[in-house]
């Protein structure tokens, strides 16, 4: 199987221009971030932050200062509200399981939206085995939460509601404040968690203003290293740890803190927030050029998610009708353009992206969807190249489809 991959990679030889747009699923890490991390592997702060020697105290200092910075970027009150986890998946697991178990004496109902990320959906499925029922709130055709249904769903039994600030696939910016007010109005004891991974560094975000109890952020979504994220837990909110082991500087996550990754996450956050507006404008401008260019050059397309200021500035999710998504990702890859698809062609049970299904996309539309996210590191030339490549790639795949696949 590895031999096959070598051949696949060889087929990419001779590519003149490469543009990586699959920033939903993993990202490159800028040199500034890697450079900031490197000393922490072998030059300083490589000790265990709970131990009584210089490298340990250096690690302690580094982790605390990092938590302080992340707490500022999030608008948290104190640094102790930040728990570093090995990623967004772990932070969401900790938020949902930790909050549910810590408060199970009270209530046993969890409310989420239909379009929560997989690492929230699957945790609620696990929690069902422990007696927690889940209600999924529907969304409209642009992915906005149905607030009336939310009002109906939250009751005295509700222990936790979890609604992502920005949807990771279609970029919908939820009316989070309204949602939170509804939840707290119906049940002041219910906790409110938000996965803010796709909001962090993209839209203004302040956990104290929002009054959320728990918030997840991840490093790689802002071009930091993979393997690190954080959960904000508001002071006084009760959450159980979900893994057992040696507790160090953090109560909620055991094991030795990964100082270099924490440094990388912090550096990536600093870069994202250093000139926040300029960064956001840049990804926004490039995203618009990308989406407008695609719509200008091809027909039979559908934009997935809302238009305008209720859409994350980096997100472009487009369904290419009469065009299967996985085939298109490969065709584009061979031309140096790297994207992902909400197609379900990799399983027998052919269920495409649950987000696209929830906003009412037909399966055939979901199978032809392509997700792209711009970053401040992309250039105008990058987008021009992508716009050059996409029409012929779509044209070739549509040529293979021919008269078949038209429903």
């Amino acid at each position, binding site marked *: 199987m590895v031999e096959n991959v070598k051949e696949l990679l060889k*087929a990419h030889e001779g590519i003149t221009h490469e543009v990586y747009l699959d920033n939903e699923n993993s990202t490159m890490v800028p040199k500034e971030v890697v450079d900031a991390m490197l000393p922490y592997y072998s030059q300083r702060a490589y000790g265990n932050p709970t131990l009584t020697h210089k490298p340990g105290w250096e690690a302690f200092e580094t982790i605390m200062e990092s938590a302080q910075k992340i707490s500022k970027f999030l608008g948290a009150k104190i640094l102790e509200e930040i728990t570093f986890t090995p990623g967004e998946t772990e932070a969401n697991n900790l938020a949902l399981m930790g909050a549910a178990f810590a408060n199970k004496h009270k209530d046993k109902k969890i409310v989420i939206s239909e379009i929560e990320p997989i690492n929230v959906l699957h945790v609620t499925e696990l929690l069902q085995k422990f007696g927690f029922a889940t209600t999924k709130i529907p969304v409209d055709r642009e992915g906005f939460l149905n607030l009336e249904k939310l009002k109906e769903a939250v009751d005295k039994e509700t222990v936790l509601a979890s609604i992502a600030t920005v949807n990771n696939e279609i970029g919908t910016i939820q009316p989070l404040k309204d949602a939170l007010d509804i939840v707290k109005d119906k049940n002041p004891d219910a906790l409110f968690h938000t996965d803010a991974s796709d909001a962090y560094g993209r839209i203004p975000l302040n956990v104290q203003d929002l009054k959320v109890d728990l918030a997840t952020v991840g490093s790689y979504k802002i071009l930091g290293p993979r393997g690190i994220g954080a959960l904000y837990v508001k002071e006084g909110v009760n959450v159980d740890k979900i893994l057992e082991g040696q507790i160090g500087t953090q109560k909620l996550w055991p094991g030795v803190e990964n100082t270099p990754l924490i440094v990388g996450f912090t550096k990536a956050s600093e870069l994202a927030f250093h000139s926040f507006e300029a960064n956001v404008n840049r990804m926004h401008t490039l995203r618009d050029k990308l989406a407008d260019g695609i719509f200008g050059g091809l027909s039979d397309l559908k934009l997935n998610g809302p238009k305008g200021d209720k859409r994350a500035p980096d997100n472009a999710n487009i369904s290419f009708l009469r065009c*299967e998504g996985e*085939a298109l990702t*490969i065709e584009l890859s061979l031309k140096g353009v790297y994207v992902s698809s909400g197609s379900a062609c*990799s*399983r027998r049970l052919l269920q495409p992206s649950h987000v696209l299904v929830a906003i009412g996309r*037909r399966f*055939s539309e979901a199978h032809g969807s392509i997700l792209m996210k711009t970053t401040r590191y992309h250039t105008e030339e990058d987008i021009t190249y992508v716009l050059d490549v996409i029409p012929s790639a779509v044209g070739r795949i549509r040529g293979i489809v021919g008269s*078949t696949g038209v*429903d």
Partner: protein
Amino acid sequence: MSRVPLPYTQKVLDLFRNPKNLGKMEDATVVAISGNPACGDMITFYLKINDQEIIEKASFESYGCAANIATASIVTEMLKGLRLESAWKDITWKKVTEEVGGLPSVKFHCGILAVGAVKRAIRKYYEQKGVASSWIPQELTFEEKQALEEEELAKTLAKRLHVAEEK
């Protein structure tokens, strides 16, 4: 949506990039389809069959992933010059998978779907002629059943998830 690594073989990639026998055939004797757009997986075969029951030409169109395109294309190559009886008996999904140098296990269904469409085409040929063939069983073959199952599955799933036409 689950994800698995998909290290396609060189042969799959070659057939994806330069599919053989691609396109609609205007003078086809028989046309057969398996899968549907909801599956994200659909193949149409066009066969030109002569009076000696030999497949003179075969072509395809495919709405699907690289494995779907590659298996459909290789099947058209395998069919060319075959008598219908040997096309029915000798072209199995395992053989198709071998011909493309192997497939990731989650993609086996692409080969199955392609062979299902071939079997449908051959059945249809005899139905069109109004003659029975001694070597075609009444009962659907494994590949035909699987194709049917995949089509039904997508329909049921779409219905269950309220992905109806009106939405």
